[in-house]
């Protein structure tokens, strides 16, 4: 009897230790209850089913622990930051768009007398900062999309995030290598990531439009993607015309500025519709 009691105490201690596998907020909220339930369950199982039942329960509990701990970590990553992000997504996207527009006007409109390396550095910082802020906006948009469109919204959000991460990684690589010339592979990688990014936003934009999730601002995600896609089609053609022509090309400048403005409007849309219901009411 004393041996089984010791065994139960040991199993309880091991389980309490293993609870550290869960994310801290979850463990703080439910760790005590889970340990209490495990203790009661092992005690009753041992009495009802003997040692074989106890071993079976421990195996079941520990495999479940690993599975659910993983699920809770994923949940924390995708939900907790998103909830905070939802509040900040509107201002973030608006600031991202503003940073983009003002930088484009300053760099290409006023042509500051700085050398190429400094200009690339500024561009990369603008890319990273606005990319981060726009990414927050995308997170907020994702949370606004109707829950009924789960597979499509996950796919498009995933695609846009992948593109965002890749083009920011490319920006960092540019910054670190300080290269003024890009080889063919780098160009394909950068434009490919841009394409994935804007295609993902386009998909989210279609879902947002069909659900009217941002009210009268529901067109803005589609506008962002359309301008972005147009940009990656126009830029290589402008580049072919000769070095330097990109900065002097008015349509390209206008396109870049409009792209930033569309993000600004998307931010305003997210901001102004923050209190609105997350999903459209279904007719009775």
């Amino acid at each position, binding site marked *: 009897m004393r041996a089984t009691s010791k065994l139960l105490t040991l199993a309880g201690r091991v389980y309490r230790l293993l609870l550290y596998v869960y994310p801290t907020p979850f463990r703080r909220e*439910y760790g005590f209850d889970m340990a209490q*339930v495990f203790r009661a369950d092992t005690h009753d199982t041992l009495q009802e089913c003997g040692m074989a039942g106890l071993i079976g329960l421990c195996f*079941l509990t520990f495999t*479940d622990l690993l599975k659910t701990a993983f699920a809770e970590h994923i949940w924390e990553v995708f939900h907790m930051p998103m909830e905070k992000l939802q509040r900040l997504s509107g201002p973030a996207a608006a600031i991202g768009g503003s940073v983009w527009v003002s930088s484009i006007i300053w760099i290409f409109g006023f042509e500051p007398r700085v050398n190429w390396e400094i200009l690339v550095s500024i561009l990369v910082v603008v890319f990273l900062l606005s990319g981060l802020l726009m990414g927050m906006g995308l997170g907020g948009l994702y949370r606004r999309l109707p*829950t*009924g469109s789960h597979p499509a919204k996950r796919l498009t959000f995933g695609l846009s995030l992948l593109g965002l991460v890749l083009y920011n990684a490319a920006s960092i690589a540019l910054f670190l290598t300080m290269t003024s010339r890009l080889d063919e592979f780098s160009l394909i990688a950068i434009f490919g990531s841009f394409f994935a990014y804007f295609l993902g936003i386009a998909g989210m934009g279609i879902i947002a439009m069909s659900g009217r999730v941002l009210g009268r601002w529901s067109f803005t995600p589609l506008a962002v993607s359309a301008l972005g896609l147009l940009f990656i089609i126009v830029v290589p053609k402008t580049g072919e015309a000769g070095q330097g022509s990109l900065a002097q090309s008015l349509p390209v400048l206008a396109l870049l500025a409009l792209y930033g403005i569309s993000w600004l409007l998307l931010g305003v849309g997210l901001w102004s519709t923050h209190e609105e219901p997350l999903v459209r009411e*279904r007719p009775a």
Partner: protein
Amino acid sequence: MTEPDLESLLPLSPSVFHILLALADEERHGYGIMQEIRLRTDGQVRLVPGTLYGAIKRLLAQQLIEEVDARPDPAIDDERRRYYRLTDFGQRVLRAEAARLASLVRQADAKQLLSGWSQSLATGGE
């Protein structure tokens, strides 16, 4: 705080359905929920703490269940135990899911998939 869309929560996962069903008639603590499910299903469904509290967390967030403020009498039960009960919204979701499942069973019955099965159940699967 606005309630989530009822339709978007369906279908419920089997474990969530069992938890809500366990709370349909009375408020229970975590282990009470586990015991009720085990008894009701003759031990065929067995929840363990990770799945149970993961589901409880989501059900609280979706406003399908709520924690009962009152604590049990220390003479009867451990006062640290948290009791949960169904919300009105949770009741509606549970009813909707039960109706959905009943409709599926009716469809299966219409295709005479249950005739042999119900005989088999009556004779204990012989």
